[in-house]
């Protein structure tokens, strides 16, 4: 009798162990994204008995450098929060077979789902749920404009108008910099497209150096020569190193700063009531007024031993109520079309932060198709890292602009050929 009980208990324990599924989620956060998800996953665990989610919070560098290497050798987490959809596409799990309502996900997240449908991934696969849509755009120091007695350009103003106004503010107030753009091809791409850059050839391959791209490059280099652009940002580094100018903006040393919506939380926190600032949204060129979309999303990884559980979790992540709750806490823009239409009830935000979130959210529907194509392009990192490397050489006079652009085109082609 005692032996029977012991065997039964062992069988029950074994069955229990085989049903218990632990999902590891590698997560990076700009603000409090991982904390918000960890809290939300408690609801998921309550709804899905036997599945537990362990959130491993890591620095962004680990997502960029360590995760691809882990995945390459078949190791790593079951899910991760990533931004490089093209580079990690071949490791992603298509959860379409494991979700109960793929059409709902398709309807809500259609444009951003396309970012991971590259390479050998299925054209209708569900690989990613974007939980932080980002949009590039400008910020202006309203207090400096007011002190300088310069009218701030209205929404929809051109780069030239912003450059004139920002220079006037700099000259009147004695600050160091009129304008700055983050040192990355991602930020450079938006004004280039607004100047008419097509970026892709007829086969859908980047990078095409056309008149639009050339025109903005010329303008960009000229702005560095005449001191309109903060030289420290692009000329202050080499290679494809990323550098932002958020510190200069926070220190009220910069009149206009072109960056993106992910800075809103930081500005709200670090600027406080030191000065008034506004989000300008997209800035216009002769051909368009587009920004660049982007953002972080949660992906399942195809080496997981629990694909069904990963599918359930991805479906949970995609739910309107869950997204609304997490986005309200993280103060990020939604990629979910339903939430974009209805808006998010952001909690405890200052009027500036609320206005900035609204301005950026309003700019997203006007982004050009090329901008979405570049964001979903499998080799967009080759474009993003090579643009600053080569344009900086033109800015500091190592190469003529023409030489730099020829080299840029060749570098991107070489990098893509290497990856194919």
């Amino acid at each position, binding site marked *: 009798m005692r032996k029977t009980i012991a065997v039964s208990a062992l069988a029950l324990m074994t069955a229990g162990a085989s049903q218990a599924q632990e999902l590891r989620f590698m997560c990076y956060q700009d603000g409090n994204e991982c904390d918000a998800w960890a809290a939300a996953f408690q609801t998921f665990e309550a709804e899905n008995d036997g599945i537990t989610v362990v959130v491993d919070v890591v620095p962004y560098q680990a997502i960029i*450098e360590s995760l691809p290497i882990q995945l*390459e050798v078949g190791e790593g987490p079951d899910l991760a929060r990533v931004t490089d959809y093209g*580079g990690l596409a071949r490791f992603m799990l298509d959860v379409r077979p494991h979700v109960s309502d793929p059409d709902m996900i398709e309807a809500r997240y259609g444009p951003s789902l396309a970012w991971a449908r590259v390479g050998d991934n299925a054209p209708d696969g569900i690989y990613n749920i974007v939980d932080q849509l980002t949009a590039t755009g400008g910020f202006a120091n309203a207090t400096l404009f007011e002190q300088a007695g310069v009218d701030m350009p209205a929404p929809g103003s051109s780069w030239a108008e912003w450059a004139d106004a920002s220079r006037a503010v700099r000259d009147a107030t004695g600050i160091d910099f009129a304008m700055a753009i983050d040192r990355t091809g991602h930020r450079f791409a938006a004004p280039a497209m607004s100047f008419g850059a097509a970026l892709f050839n007829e086969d859908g391959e980047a990078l095409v150096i056309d008149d639009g791209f050339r025109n903005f490059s010329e303008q960009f280099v000229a702005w560095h020569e005449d001191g309109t652009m903060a030289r420290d940002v692009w000329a202050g580094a080499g290679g494809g190193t990323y*550098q932002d100018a958020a510190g200069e903006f926070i220190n009220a040393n910069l009149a206009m700063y072109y960056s993106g919506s992910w800075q809103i939380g930081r500005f709200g926190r670090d600027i406080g009531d030191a000065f008034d600032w506004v989000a300008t949204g997209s800035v216009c060129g002769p051909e368009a007024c587009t920004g660049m979309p982007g953002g972080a999303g949660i992906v399942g990884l195809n080496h997981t031993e629990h694909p069904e559980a990963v599918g359930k979790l991805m479906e949970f992540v995609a739910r309107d109520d869950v997204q609304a709750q997490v986005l309200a806490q993280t103060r990020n823009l939604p990629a979910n079309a339903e939430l974009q239409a209805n808006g998010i009830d952001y909690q405890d935000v200052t009027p500036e932060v609320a206005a900035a979130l609204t301005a950026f959210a309003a700019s997203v529907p006007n982004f050009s198709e090329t901008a979405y194509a570049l964001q979903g392009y499998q080799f967009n990192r080759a474009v993003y890292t090579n643009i600053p490397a080569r344009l900086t050489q033109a800015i500091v006079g190592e*190469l003529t602009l023409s030489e730099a652009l020829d080299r840029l085109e060749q570098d991107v082609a070489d990098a893509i050929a290497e*990856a194919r």
Partner: protein
Amino acid sequence: MAALVRALYEGAFNLFEKPMQMLQYSLGAHRMAWVFLLPNLLIFGLFTYLPIMLNVWYASTSGDRILLGDRDWVGTANFATLLDCGSYLDPNTCRRDLFWRAVHNTGWFVVLQVGFMILLSLIAALILNRNIPLKGFFRAVFFYPVLLSPVVVALIWKWILQRNGVLNAGMDWAGMDTVNWLLDPSWAFFWIVFVSIWANMGFYVLILLAGLQAIPGDVYEAAEMDGTPAWRQLFRITLPLLTPTLLVVMVLSLIRAVQAFDEIYVLTGGGPGSATTLLIQYIYDVGFATRPRQFGLAAAASLLMAGVLLVLTLLQLAATRKRAEEG
């Protein structure tokens, strides 16, 4: 206590004695040497020779995959790409111009950094070898930067040299025009050489001091009795007798200069443009920082650099041996 230690030692000795004796009987005295060499051979094989072989393999393949089986064999194509140049003296004529800019920068960096480093270290060592007040304090001052992490060194100097840094604040206070030290290509290059010398000089001063103190004092006494002036003593006694030490310093500083990366990467990021990009940073950028990663090209560049270093080291060793034979 001593008895206990001895007992433990003997116990441990007896524990190994029997198996070692058996091994010696079965292998013979000559082969027994391999048993003692095996642990080191394994460590070197695993952590030195295997990575070198892997590097050769990566250099002969292409693609951004890490697993060797997933990579395409391209033979010497990566080397050919790097060496494809109209003129090696003009990076603009090279297919991989950034590689050749890094080669040129590294060449200039090595010449200037090693040259000035040895000169300044020698001067400092000669001064510190004399009976000057606070000799111990000054020796510590020169050696202190060596104890700092290269990243800390770079951050300190960045704080000094940046647009609103200490140096510009001082110049501004003195009514002078400020300079954007790290945004001007020539100044940025000057400062990476300067900072590198500042950070590493103490180590070589220490070696040269040891060399100076090894020179017998009676040689100088004899020279003074003959009325030999100080400058003649320097060129006829000190420098000739210090040459072996100087050669060691030269080999060490040369290798270290070619490998320079961390403090320069933090200080300038290789910029402005590619003005301070040295070879190691080029390898890092191509292999790890840019996407897609070009491991093959990075591996080929590192092997080319290793080849140059090997040749330089062999030349130095040959020179040392020649002098030793002459001496």
